[in-house]
């Protein structure tokens, strides 16, 4: 399913569907403590197709999170415009889920109740909620931990629960804000595999930010390389791998792409 999409996109003759998210000349500044305007994003334009997997890669503190929060509708840009399915993006919309840097689970609720939170807000009946939640909890590998509280879980398990809590709402877009940065290498790799598995079953668009080149190459079909703050787009790199190839981090092809991106990134410093 994934490879079909990939074959479509580079072909210029096939009618291109309207991108799911489109950013046009986005700019954003913050007011620093001394009252000066601190530009964070500068003239960002990019298009993200439906079911694509895009990484926003940039050095730490370059403004990646700001860009992600703009896409989530948490913030509004100072200049330019964001579009969702061709319509200007307003405030929060239910088709977007955000996986934060830390799991941000509700620590007063069990895993099960955390996952059910969004469905409850949406007004689903209890039986329906339970059935749907059980499915997603199993899918992220937390079966048996339904009644556990977040504090009783490891960091990786918490992120799995946070992922289930979002995916149970069947979002069209999943925005990930360096969610695996705090995990150990082994757990992180398992999370990468989990994301691939989930996307095979339920197609959704992923946009994630990272400063880890390897993670970007593993997860993304397209890597958008950002400069130091104020962030602008330096280049977009297409990753021509199938999911299986993406996970083979020791291959030559993988190393080549990694090197290519790293060189781009180093030019910005």
């Amino acid at each position: 399913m994934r490879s079909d999409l990939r074959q479509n996109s580079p072909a210029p003759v096939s009618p291109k569907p309207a991108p799911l998210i489109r950013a046009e000349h986005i700019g954003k500044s913050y007011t620093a403590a001394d009252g000066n305007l601190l530009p964070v994003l500068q003239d960002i334009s990019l298009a993200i197709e439906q079911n694509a997997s895009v990484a926003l890669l940039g050095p730490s503190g370059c403004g990646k999170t700001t860009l992600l929060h703009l896409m989530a509708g948490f913030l509004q840009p100072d200049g330019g415009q964001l579009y969702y399915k061709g319509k200007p993006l307003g405030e929060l919309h239910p088709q977007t889920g955000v996986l934060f840097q830390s799991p941000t689970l509700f620590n007063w609720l069990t895993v099960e109740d955390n996952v059910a939170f969004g469905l409850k807000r949406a007004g689903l009946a209890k039986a329906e909620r339970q059935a749907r939640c059980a499915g997603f909890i199993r899918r992220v590998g937390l079966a048996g931990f339904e009644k556990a509280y977040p504090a009783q879980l490891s960091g990786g398990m918490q992120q799995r629960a946070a992922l289930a809590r979002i995916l149970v709402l069947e979002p069209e877009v999943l925005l990930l804000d360096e969610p695996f940065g705090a995990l150990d290498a082994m757990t992180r790799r398992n999370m990468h595999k989990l994301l691939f598995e989930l996307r095979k079953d339920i197609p959704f668009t992923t946009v994630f930010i990272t400063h880890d080149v390897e993670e970007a190459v593993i997860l993304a079909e397209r890597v958008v390389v950002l400069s130091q703050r104020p962030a602008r787009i330096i280049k977009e790199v297409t990753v021509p791998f199938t999911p299986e190839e993406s996970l083979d981090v020791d291959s030559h092809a993988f190393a080549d792409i990694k090197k290519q991106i790293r060189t781009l990134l180093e030019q910005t410093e």
Partner: protein
Amino acid sequence: MLKSKPIRQREPGKNPGLPYLLPALLLLAWFLTTHFQLLPPYLLPKPTDTLRALVRFAAPGATGPYGGTLWVHLWHSLGRVCRGFGLAAGAGLLLGYLCGRRQGLNRIISPFVHLIRSVPGIGWLPLAIVWFGVGEKNTLFLISLASFFPIFTNTVHSAASVSQQIILAGQMLGAKKTALFTSVILPASFAGVAVGLRLGLGIAWAYLVLGEMTGVNYGLGAVMTDARMLGNTAMVIVCIVVIAIAAKITDSLLLLGCRLAAPIEQEKAGGNS
């Protein structure tokens, strides 16, 4: 040859008897002081006399001074504490959450509240007497005023400390306005708010006695004042003991209520840390 010491079964500091050590020593000192008549009985009555007074106070239908009247006095005192604490909790929680979540309102209200708070509660007594006379209303005023402050302060702080990311998470999952408050802000801030409520309830008992001593017909504070004027020191001590026990019981009930409302906070989450 060195012999390793046998491992102690019980960790030091974990002995369940420790909390009773000081009261037991105090009781012993009391017993010895009165036994050797180091202090005259009008300053310190014998423990046995005090116990007898307590039994007489509590036994329904008992004759003699204050015989069997414990329950009616306790009932009135408890009622005042509940009403005063209820008022304070209502106002403290409402204003606390508003100020904690609305920065502008907080800048208007909090400095003024902290200004008033710096007046010791007892400093309000003369004004309270002028405004409300002695007795019922004055007591209620003192209790609710004094216990309002810890409830308000803790609620403002806890409500303001709810992390922005937790709120974003709640919004992202579809909780808006009222639902966001009841399903995210309220539970996320609850542990701190509960601390404020417990402090407030403790202070409510303290100011109960102050208010009741100004003159009510029924109440433990009234019994204390009366007994003091009659030189019945045993009864004063009995009242102190009754208040201590009653305050402890209401505190435990409040804690139980808080745990039922937010079952995890204190125990299960704490077990992991």
